């Protein structure tokens, strides 16, 4: 079968002879015979590329969702990604390089990441940003780990407005270090901090979503004041597109920003690879997780870039490292830098504004349908909002798919078995989260509204 191996039969013979061996099998003489696999792997024989592509085309066709007009969000948004961004981010020098261990031959990636760090820091309104983490959820985990280390207190108060999947990931990873995560409930889309139990001791970390997962802009000043009173580190899980219109986490006084960077040029891609954003204040720089690129000079005095403050990292510090992150999401960080360069100063604000206009128009129209109610109170929304439908949301999503729309994400699917602490099962089952990006036209929105109107009646 064809493959990607350059060895001819003669090459193999010659190379084996050089080693004094007579067969390839002898290369594995150190593997105990009793352990050797007999009969080969339980896989099919290899197939030529066109066969495999055809198989994938068939699988791709079975994803009906990809052909629908997308009103789903919940942390994954259908933003414009122009040809120029796909073209540049697809350059094989960026795609097929390894971690920049040898700075002299990695200035391209290093400088692009330096620019990415600068852009994330500006969006965050904080001075330091790292070279990326896996996704928003992993950034949250690292933010909490930093906050616990900085405060010396393992109790973490997390608003239930933080994305349910991120909270689930935090719960999973809190087990190792033994953090005590307390979920602070929402009421009509706002975190009720007064309700937080202090039974577990004073928190070292507070986490607020901005906007929260229901799309609401909560008041970070309240969380900041509370964090000050408790001597806690404030982590804001912020959306980078929203920041095009609203104050940055830094302006609100956050110590750490964590975020999902998918909206910055990364395709929906069934949830990954995405891009974890992480920024913090200067005082926490030595606790920063993951890689950091710094500027320096080469031996001729020219500007150069290199990974720095390496003594924090796992390959140097081993069991005392600030994090175990090694591989991150560099290519997506480079992509985000290119996308932000394309958007520019005016474009980021313009995208955020267009999302807000579309969402307002869509929300107003949907609320005009009999039996459709807001699920949140009088809190402002930007790109996304939550509704309570008169019928189950999953049924509506199914019916609208037949009309060509992905109507949104069903809340009970999103919150899963863990629930939300503020949504009862009935509200979750009828809850629909709708996102409107700058790509949605008035005709598409009108079409969604008409189809949903029909769906809730039938």
């Amino acid at each position, binding site marked *: 079968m064809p*493959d*990607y191996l350059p*060895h001819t039969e003669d090459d193999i013979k010659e190379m084996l002879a050089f080693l004094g061996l007579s067969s390839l099998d002898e290369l594995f003489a*150190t593997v105990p015979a009793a352990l050797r696999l007999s009969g080969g*792997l*339980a896989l099919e024989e*290899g*197939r*030529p590329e066109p066969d495999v592509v055809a198989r*994938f085309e068939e699988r791709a066709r079975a994803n*009906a*969702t*990809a052909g629908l007009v997308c009103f789903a969000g919940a942390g*994954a948004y259908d933003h414009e990604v122009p040809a120029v961004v796909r073209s540049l981010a697809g*350059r094989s020098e*960026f795609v097929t*390089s390894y971690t*920049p261990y*040898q700075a*002299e*031959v990695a*200035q391209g*990636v290093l*400088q692009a990441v*330096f620019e990415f760090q*600068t852009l994330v820091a500006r969006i965050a309104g904080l*001075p330091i940003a790292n*070279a990326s983490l896996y*996704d928003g959820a992993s950034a949250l985990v690292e933010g909490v780990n930093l906050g616990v280390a900085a405060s010396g207190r393992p109790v973490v108060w997390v608003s239930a407005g933080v*994305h349910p999947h991120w909270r689930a*990931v935090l719960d999973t990873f809190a*087990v*190792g*270090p033994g953090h005590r995560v307390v979920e602070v409930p929402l009421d009509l889309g706002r975190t009720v901090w007064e309700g937080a139990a202090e039974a577990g001791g004073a928190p070292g970390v507070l986490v607020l979503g901005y906007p929260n997962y229901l799309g609401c802009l909560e008041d970070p000043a309240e969380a900041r004041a509370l964090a000050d009173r408790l001597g806690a580190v404030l982590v804001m899980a912020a959306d980078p597109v929203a920041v*095009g219109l609203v104050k940055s986490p830094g*302006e609100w006084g956050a110590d750490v920003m964590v975020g999902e960077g998918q909206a910055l040029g990364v*395709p929906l891609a069934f*949830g*990954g*690879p995405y891009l974890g954003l992480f920024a913090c204040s200067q005082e926490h720089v030595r606790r920063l997780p993951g890689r950091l690129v710094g*500027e320096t000079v*080469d*031996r*001729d005095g020219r500007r*150069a870039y290199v990974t720095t403050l390496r003594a924090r990292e796992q390959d140097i510090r081993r069991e005392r*490292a600030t994090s175990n992150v090694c591989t991150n999401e560099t290519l*997506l960080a480079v992509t985000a830098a*290119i996308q932000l360069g*394309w958007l*520019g100063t*005016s*474009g*980021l604000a313009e995208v955020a504004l267009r999302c807000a*206009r579309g969402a*307002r128009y869509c929300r107003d129209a949907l609320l005009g349908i009999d039996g459709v109610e807001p699920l949140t109170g009088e809190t402002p929304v930007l790109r996304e909002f939550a509704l309570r439908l008169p019928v189950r949301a999953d049924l509506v*999503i199914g019916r609208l*798919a037949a009309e060509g729309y992905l109507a949104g994400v069903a809340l009970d699917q999103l919150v899963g*078995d863990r629930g939300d602490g503020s949504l009862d099962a009935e509200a979750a089952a009828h809850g629909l989260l709708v996102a409107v990006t*700058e790509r949605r036209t*008035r005709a598409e929105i009108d079409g969604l509204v008409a189809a949903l109107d029909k769906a809730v009646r039938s």
Partner: protein
Amino acid sequence: MTSAPGGRARSIPLLGHDTEPTLFELSAPGRQSWQLRTTGVPDRTVDELVPAAHRRRELVPIAEVSERDLVGHFTRLSHRQFSIDLGAYPLGSCTMKYNPKVADAVAALPGLAAAHPGAPASLTQGWLAVLVELEEALCAISGMAAATLQPAAGAAGELTGLLLMRAWHAAAGEDRRRVIIPDSAHGTNPASVTLGGYQVTTVPSDARGCVDMAALRAVLDADVAGIMLTNPNTLGLFEEDIAEIAGAVHEVGGLLYYDGANLNAILGVVRPGDMGFDIVHLNLHKTFATPHGGGGPGAGPVAVSARLAEFLPGPRPVRLAPGADGGPRFGWETPARSIGRVHGWHGNALVLARALAYIEVHGRDGLLRVAERAVLNANWLRRRLSSSYDVAFDRPCMHEVVLSAATLRKAHGVSALDVAKRLIDEGFHPPTVYFPLIVDEALMVEPTETESKETLMALADAFEAVAAEAVAGLLDHESPRHTPVRRVDEARAARRLVATYDARREE
């Protein structure tokens, strides 16, 4: 150069040693690249949409460049970057093999790339099929019973595996505190152990470069939750006593964790499950050739034996009983005693799809050929270079060989770093240096199976020429000379931290 006018399209960084300005220095007020769809959505002002308390006063400063400038800038940056597409990349432990382009084509299919992760299973049957089939293939390759595809990288897989270990012992009512790691292990192992809530116990390697059995037995007791091993280990050697190690660890109730960083060497030859491992992580960006993107994304699925399957992260993609009505064939299921989610969605899906494409093209026969030729290439280099370099443990290796510049250093004052930097001027990416930590002046070479005999000969020639220069006293500490920048001042970067363009301006 401190600044450059925006809009100047010149290829100076390619033609000389000048620096490329940052995106911010290329900015010129009033330039614009973005073009957005005409939507017909009614205009509203920011004031109507955002309450004053939340509104930002000034725009987030990004940069203002034309699309042409954007293309020029990032293309010039790409010319300052080595990549596997450009030439051999023999970084030990990193498995920098050629990344087949067919995987790019698969990942670009709109039916995969434009699928929303929150869509219901009925609308994402194709993706669920990809995930389930990949899980089945990875289980076949590793000899395990079930897997999670959620971990986004090897280190995430390690931590997931340790939490599985923890859940397993907790379910048995035990609170064990220690995890054993050999002194040759990757740094992520001990870092993950700490985050998993365990303490590290290090065991030394013996004279053969393998786990010292006597030392291992001495630290094994009922407090040991498990052991993390890489096999072949980071010295490129197969742990021949693996069955004995597995028996000893299992005897005290511990579990065996397999770090899959070096799986490439043994594809189709021997499976971690058959060696006695209970938990296995696989680095799809190494073994299965998904491009590493300058440092990520990766994917680090974790496969487990049957007794651990009920603890796996959820929700998991699963096959459903086929419905007579032609209903969905795949769905989601959360294992009974799941440790919970370890990823915001379902894992690095496009990386997973690329790996499945790689596996399907190669198949059972092709994957075995991969391992055979990877080991052949590494041994050929070991034999060829053993006369000019020290070989840390000079016996048949697997997919990589650890050389050492210890003698060159002692006799001629030339370090592993000098050798590495000199190789760059010969057109090769250097090997991994100073790892594993137990080898003095280590040069860890992993040629991979996709490099030809001619490339290996050229690489060996370059290594030998550098050694000869060192012996002749001609090798200085000045290389590389022909790169966009020369040796960089790492100490200065740490001492005077400039991690953003804005920090530079404040200097």
